[in-house]
């Protein structure tokens, strides 16, 4: 990957990690040094996320075949698996 690609990935990752955090940044003072970033969804609040219908990889064999059918008829490839969903809470 060239530098441009790395830069793009870095920017998107940063946006992703920080996105949606505003409501959880608790301002304890005027200085930015006092901002505290905390997980905003507690483990006991993840019952919806732990439901199997929220798992993108719940049927791995079927998923692999579907991707195979798509890729064998399309010029594009890659970035169709990876991180996926999941909440690390089961």
């Amino acid at each position: 990957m060239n530098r441009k690609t790395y830069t793009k990935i870095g920017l998107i990752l940063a946006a992703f990690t920080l996105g949606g955090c505003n409501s959880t940044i608790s301002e304890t003072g005027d200085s930015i040094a006092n901002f505290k970033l905390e997980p905003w969804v507690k483990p006991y609040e993840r019952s919806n996320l732990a439901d199997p219908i929220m798992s993108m990889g719940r049927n791995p064999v079927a998923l692999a075949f579907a991707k195979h059918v798509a890729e064998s008829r399309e010029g594009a490839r890659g970035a169709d698996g990876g991180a996926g969903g999941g909440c690390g809470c089961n």
Partner: protein
Amino acid sequence: MHCKQRDLTHNSLIKLLPFIGMLASLIFASFLSYASVLPEDRSDVMYHAYEGDGVSIDGPSILLRKQIGNHVSVSANYYADTVSGASIDVRATASEYQEERKETTIGTDFLHEKSLLSLSYTNSTENDFVANSVYVGLSQSFFGDLTTLTMSYSKGWDEVMKRGDESFFEEADRQKFGIGVSQIMSKSLIVGFNAEHVSDEGYLNNPYRSIRYRDADSDRGFSFTTELYPNTRSSTAYSINANYYLPYRAALYADARMYSDSWGIEARNGRIGYLQPYKNFLLDVFVRYYSQEGADFYRDLFDRPNQFNFMARDKEMSTYNGLTAGVSLSYEWKFSETATIKKSSFHVEVDYMKFDYDNFRDVTADAPIGEEPLFGFNASALKIYASIWY
């Protein structure tokens, strides 16, 4: 017939190349979805079938997963398909063929606190093609398990042969670098981002595929000769995805991807789906759209056989779009947590696909050269499988 077989064989070969290592990546991607935990102990047995553009493909797939202790999980997957018939690429220059491909993947996962290391090896074998690949993936969850970062690398070695030509032997190496992050955004929303860079080097040409060029000496006004591809290719793809839990226990999901490569192919695709459970049933419907601009060296009709250094007429290199709609229904049985088998399910899915090409013509039609109707076709894919959790 032999020529037809060769064309068909490599036709499918090229189509299957992206699948080499894919199965491992995809199966282990689902592992990575649950960072900090080992994948579930389960077994799946599937029958798959594809029909479209004169080609039939079907076969089984079996997946076994089992934990060993609290920190290790092992898995094995066997996939096979039998291809018969002849696609438009083959019908234009040859006849029907039949061939088999077998693929085996073995893998293991190691869990250490919030880190999951995944390793796998895949072998895929056809009569005139052998591919071996290794995969390593590392997944780490942090920030109260709201964020999961994954990184992966895979390396593949292909051996390309050609039926009817014992002296023909070529090789190609493939590498994939992937990075992804999934983020819990709220109590009901998970989003993900993935980027993957793929680089190939070696014999990337298809010895059976042909370009079409003008030939005044031919009855039809054109002839065919072997395609010529560059010996390197690099591509980068970015994708985002999201799953949203609806208040009445249903889910919406969507994903989108952008792709570009050094051959000039630019593509994008998007999908949206809906999951609705009802008692022990689960209904899943989705629609997916794909479009691409073709490779720089693609043409439907060349002026002469050696017009350019690189020449392709593979329809997957052309400019086209495709629409897929799918529906699946599954039924789940739950048993006691203390029973040997804790859960099982039966699943049926049918996908319907439609492809329309913008600069790939149907040369089997009776029309003046270069004025043949643009090609298009419909296809369907069937998946039937049973799963057990233990």
